């Protein structure tokens, strides 16, 4: 069946997007990213070229933007032209609230998705005062409302499949800025995407210094545990309808564990996403793990009620279980899904505080919370 569909699909003619690299010219200054691999910024005398690279097709671009300040004459036609700094923006990805906040551009947001899940107080205020429109389901944003806002650009997550929403707003003349920071695995690489969004507001040098600070804070946190004599063992993820999703060995969370000097069973694994395990595998591989991060329950009682098998885990017996619910709103907002991308140092410190509390005596948890 699978082969049949593949055959059918491959029968269609495909037109490939051509690989386009900026012409090398003396006036071109390529901005080197330190960790991020998903975007490239090039400055010329007249404009700034931003390339979002295609993670599913190495060597190809997902999108190209030409950012100009005054006039767009002489700009190549193989990308989206945008006048910067942007004055209004629809944001369909909560992870960018904090980037925009740091850059002082939060007030440019005129629309966002799923308002009830927002944590950021300024965005909530905007939604309440109707200065920010709620465009509904992030996977199916309201097209009419978006167009009525007439935003200068729409920031949305890119997936391996082009969605009709992005196609339609683009056709209507509203540029879509695709964010693919979630495809980056290293915590610092994700945070470096602040440089990408800053380019659209002509604030690259501010972003540079903000990122340098993030980086040095992250390295300082790393240094706190560099000489740990005995690493603690850790498990992660949770059971979702019978399948236990744990981070792959090359994923964001696994890399955080590595930097926090936590011993993770799948650290040698190459997978960047998550791995689906059954409960028996979890019990054998993680039964003796000392700490458990990313649990979805609020309390040990809830855990026991959900499935008594949880009680077999050492982390549960020792009461070393943490969820990500330290900063939440009543209607379901959680800062872990918003500002954590911009604060990898705090994510790291949370883990250090939990597993090696003596290394961070004064620190209080930011995103994680011990189960009651």
């Amino acid at each position, binding site marked *: 069946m699978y082969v*049949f569909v593949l055959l059918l699909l491959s029968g269609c003619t495909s*037109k490939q997007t051509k690989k386009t690299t900026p012409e090398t010219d003396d006036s071109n200054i390529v901005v080197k990213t330190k960790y991020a691999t998903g975007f490239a910024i090039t400055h010329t005398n007249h404009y700034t070229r931003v390339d979002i690279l295609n993670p599913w097709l190495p060597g190809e671009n997902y999108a190209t933007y030409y950012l100009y300040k005054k006039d767009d004459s002489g700009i190549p036609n193989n990308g989206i032209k945008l006048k910067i700094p942007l004055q209004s923006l629809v944001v369909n990805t909560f992870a960018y609230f904090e980037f925009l906040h740091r850059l002082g551009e939060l007030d440019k947001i005129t629309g966002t998705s799923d308002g009830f899940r927002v944590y950021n107080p300024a965005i909530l205020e905007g939604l309440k005062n109707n200065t920010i429109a709620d465009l509904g389901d992030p996977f199916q944003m309201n097209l009419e409302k978006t*167009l009525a806002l007439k935003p200068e650009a729409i920031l949305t997550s890119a997936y391996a499949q082009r969605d009709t929403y992005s196609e339609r707003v683009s056709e209507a003349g509203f540029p879509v800025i695709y964010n693919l920071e979630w495809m980056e695995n290293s915590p610092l690489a994700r945070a470096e995407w602040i440089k990408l969004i800053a380019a659209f507001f002509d604030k690259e040098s501010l972003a540079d210094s903000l990122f340098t600070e993030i980086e040095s804070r992250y390295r300082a946190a790393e240094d706190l545990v560099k000489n740990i004599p005995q690493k603690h063992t850790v498990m992660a993820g949770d059971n979702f309808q019978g399948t236990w999703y744990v981070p792959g060995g090359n994923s964001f969370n696994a890399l955080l564990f590595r930097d926090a000097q936590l011993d993770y069973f799948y650290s040698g694994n190459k997978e960047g996403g998550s791995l689906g395990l059954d409960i028996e595998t979890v019990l054998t591989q993680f039964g003796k793990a000392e700490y458990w991060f990313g649990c979805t329950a609020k309390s040990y009682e809830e855990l026991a009620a959900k499935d008594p098998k949880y009680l077999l885990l050492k982390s549960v017996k020792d009461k070393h279980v943490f969820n990500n619910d330290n900063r939440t709103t009543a209607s379901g907002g959680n800062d872990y899904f918003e500002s954590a991308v911009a604060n990898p140092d705090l994510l790291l410190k949370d883990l250090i505080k939990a597993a090696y509390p003596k290394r961070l005596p004064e620190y209080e948890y930011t995103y994680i919370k011990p189960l009651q």
Partner: protein
Amino acid sequence: MKSKTSIFILLLVILFAAFIGDIFTGNAPISAAKAWAALFGTSGDAIVDEIVFNYRLPKALTAILAGSALSVSGLLMQTLFRNPLAGPDVLGVSAGAGLGVALLTMLSGSAIYPLISSMGSMAQVVAAIAGAILVLMLILGVSARINDSVTILVLGMIFGYVASAAITILQSFADPDSLKVFVTWTFGSLGAVTWNKIPLLTGLIFIGIAATFFLQKTLNSLLLGERYASSAGLNVRQMRIVIITITAVITGAVTAFTGPIAFVGVVIPHFARAFFGTVNHKTIIPATLILGSILLLVCDIVSQIPVANRTLPINAVTAIFGAPMIIWVVLKRKKL
């Protein structure tokens, strides 16, 4: 006869009103006057023109196309299988289309990505059509060997279950984002059909519906039972294959472009029979077409009413909003 003509005229008036109503309502604050101007020229505001002409108009046309197509394929299935519960999905074609989309969604980040990327949102349509054709081939293969409608019905449902099972397996392997992309597809969406997709959708549906009009007599004799039909000189086996093909093509086409839309196909034929008090396909086919279009247009208007800033999935609105209408008819007539 005269009263039937006047009912048809009345229904066409309601259809036109629902069509205009669908174009005049939506989430962007656009006055009726502006919408009218945008529809027949320009409102002076490019965004209003864009919303009315490039979003609301194709959406309303899709509602008519999908509503009429699904209702007629439901009618064909009910007549062929002489089963009041039959609908467009009994052949498993919708599930096949779903399987195509599920495969596409779960594999989209893999080796087939360059192809998907080059097709844009059309990739989903192609995958759904491929899945629907696969199930159609299986059904036709079975129909050529088995000369019993009920057996074919059961096998069709089994194909549907197998396709659904395969979808479930794919979902269990999927990452949460792909899962959400796929689940969103199952909500159904009339707004996903853009102008460049309308010609293909219209073409496929038109062929099916036109063929149905030529089958009026065949369908009427099938109502009296296959034995009667064959003694009256009808090649039942051949006709069965023709009816199955038509149903699969139009159901597959609609599902491919809009995602699954339940309820309409099963219920509208009953509604049409109740409304006109006849089972004669000469009346019921056009009645089904018009009533199906009206129901889907009205459901689209209802689905635009924001609930907690979200619009409701059309696939759910059809049942939730359509069911009370049908129950009212049943209670009035005390039977279907």
